[in-house]
């Protein structure tokens, strides 16, 4: 078993995709670096914190991008974003079986402010163009920094999110909520609270993540392989049904103060035990109950 959480972005790609199949576009030796960071006297990474390329997954051609959380929390700068947009636009030409986004990101890189924001909006547009052309985009979320800010929005624009218990998905991250709304509203140092609220299990139960897997690169690979054949329903009826479901969700759970209240209301037995279950036991305990 090889931990997805502990691995670097490069290790994840190597172990997730078919062995030896990954070919990188703009590798580190191309030095596609952030011009902004150097102007700010900050060392910049040779790949600007994201690795993009082509590979096969179970023999099927895929394009993949992996964000490196260790470099500026995987935050999206101008070059970083352009590499992801370029990959998505290339997929529009090449029509691979899928695009995999191994997201690990706190959102926009604040050093690059507007350039990063624009990059995120371009990623969103490119994801939607690709989906409408029939190429599915899958997000894998199980890194140390989670998936927040602009990349949180991007993740929910994709066809499916595969998450581990360790993965987190949200818009404003815990520290941002605490800073803006106060520690009474959200204590970002309360790790149990953070994982209950934005962690993989809750996202899975709310239907925001399609699959939940153990913290194992092989488990992420198996889940991604299984999704390759799924045909997403992009009809207007499906969209209307999704909106209706979201409306019901806020009606049912909008006043809940804590994720455990929601789990109880969903009819899960022993909701306080949910956080300690391993992925397999958790799936079994919640089967047929999630949204």
């Amino acid at each position, binding site marked *: 078993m090889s931990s997805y959480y502990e691995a670097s972005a490069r290790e994840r790609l190597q172990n997730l995709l078919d062995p030896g199949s990954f070919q990188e576009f703009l590798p*580190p*030796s191309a030095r596609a670096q952030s011009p902004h960071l150097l102007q700010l006297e*900050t060392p910049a*990474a*040779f790949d600007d914190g994201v690795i993009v390329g082509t590979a096969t997954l179970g023999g099927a051609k895929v394009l993949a991008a992996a964000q*490196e959380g260790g470099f500026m929390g995987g935050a999206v700068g101008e070059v970083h974003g352009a590499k992801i947009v370029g990959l998505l636009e290339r997929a529009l030409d090449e029509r691979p079986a899928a695009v995999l986004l191994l997201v690990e990101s706190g959102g926009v890189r604040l050093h690059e402010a507007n350039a990063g924001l624009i990059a995120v909006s371009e990623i969103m547009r490119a994801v939607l163009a690709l989906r409408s052309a029939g190429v599915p985009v899958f997000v894998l979320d199980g890194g140390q920094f989670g998936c927040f800010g602009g990349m949180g929005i991007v993740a929910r624009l994709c066809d499916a999110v595969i998450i581990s218990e360790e993965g987190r998905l949200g818009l404003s991250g815990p520290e941002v909520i605490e800073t803006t709304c106060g520690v009474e509203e959200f204590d970002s140092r309360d790790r149990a609270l953070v994982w209950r609220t934005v962690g993989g299990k809750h996202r899975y139960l709310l239907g925001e993540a399609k699959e939940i897997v153990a913290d194992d690169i092989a488990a992420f690979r198996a889940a991604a392989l299984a999704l390759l054949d799924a045909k997403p329903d992009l009809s207007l009826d499906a969209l209307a049904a999704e909106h209706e479901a979201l409306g019901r969700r806020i009606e049912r759970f909008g006043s809940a103060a804590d994720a455990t209240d929601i789990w109880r209301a969903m009819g899960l037995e022993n909701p306080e035990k949910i956080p300690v279950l391993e992925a397999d036991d958790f799936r079994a305990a919640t089967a047929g109950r999630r949204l």
Partner: protein
Amino acid sequence: MEKLTYEFQGGTFSRPKNEAKLVGVVGSGNLEVLIEPADLQGRCVVEVLTAARGFGAIWQAVIADFFARYPLADARVSINDVGATPAVVSLRLDQAAEDFLGDAQ
């Protein structure tokens, strides 16, 4: 931020056909090391971009030790550093050299 450059002559490990290799991450207390083959008339050039100023003498010592272990020739070693300790730098350099040279050292 400080940029430091070191050059070494007389290396014997020349691998002009090997692929460039990258190890490490540009994060606090860490660094990335990129080793690439380059036509440098037999020299090994090490370029360091570090967030911490004033540690040139220590870098010189750590990199000279590295060259003694791995006398690379026609190679460019590029480093982006965010305050890694000398021990971490040495380990990363060795890791990069082993990756670059492969099994046929």
